[in-house]
């Protein structure tokens, strides 16, 4: 299983905030999972795996928490 999280505007666009996916070698990277979600371009989106910011091509493992994060606007 993969736990997929969306935040803020991405969550609104998708209509959900959290989903479990069966892990498969078809979506073994954040980029592959993103393409599956059909939420537009990955440009400007940050990616966290198990609460660490990572690259879109970082290999995923079963059990990972994968989060897609729109541009940060805090402070």
């Amino acid at each position, binding site marked *: 299983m993969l736990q997929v*999280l969306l935040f803020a505007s991405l969550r609104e666009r998708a209509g959900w905030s959290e989903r479990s996916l069966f892990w498969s070698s078809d979506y073994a990277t954040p980029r592959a999972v993103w393409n599956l979600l059909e939420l537009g371009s990955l440009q400007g989106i940050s990616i966290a795996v198990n609460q660490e910011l990572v690259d879109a091509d970082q290999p995923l493992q079963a059990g990972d928490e994968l989060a897609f994060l729109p541009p940060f606007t*805090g402070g």
Partner: protein
Amino acid sequence: MGLIHVEIRLAGFDPWQELAQWSGHAAAASVFVGRVRSTAMDGRPLQALELEHYPGLCERQITRMAVQLQREHAAGAMLVIHRVGRLVPGEPVVLVAVQADRRGAAQRCSAALLEQLKHHAPFWKREWCADQGIWLEENTPL
């Protein structure tokens, strides 16, 4: 090296009261307080500002940036408090405070931490005007 205290708050806070509790006796302390503006990015009156964060990652990112900057600037104790939830105009959003032995170090470290926090910590703002919420696409310019 001083303590680094990072806190995300759901409840409102009084920055000066927080500083009174935190305050050490270093020769220099540089503080920034950011509050909710009364107008939205597009100039309309703002009802409220909603702030969301990614719990866990957010605190860890800020702490990591603070540790790095503390080392770079030879700074002492650092304090970051950041609100989340629904805020009204005038309410404090963020407090950043840095102690150091030199004024330049305290000022530069505090300003650098604020910029990093704005650009590299997972917070998101939504402006509410006339009962409609709009997620901000980017931060205010420096």
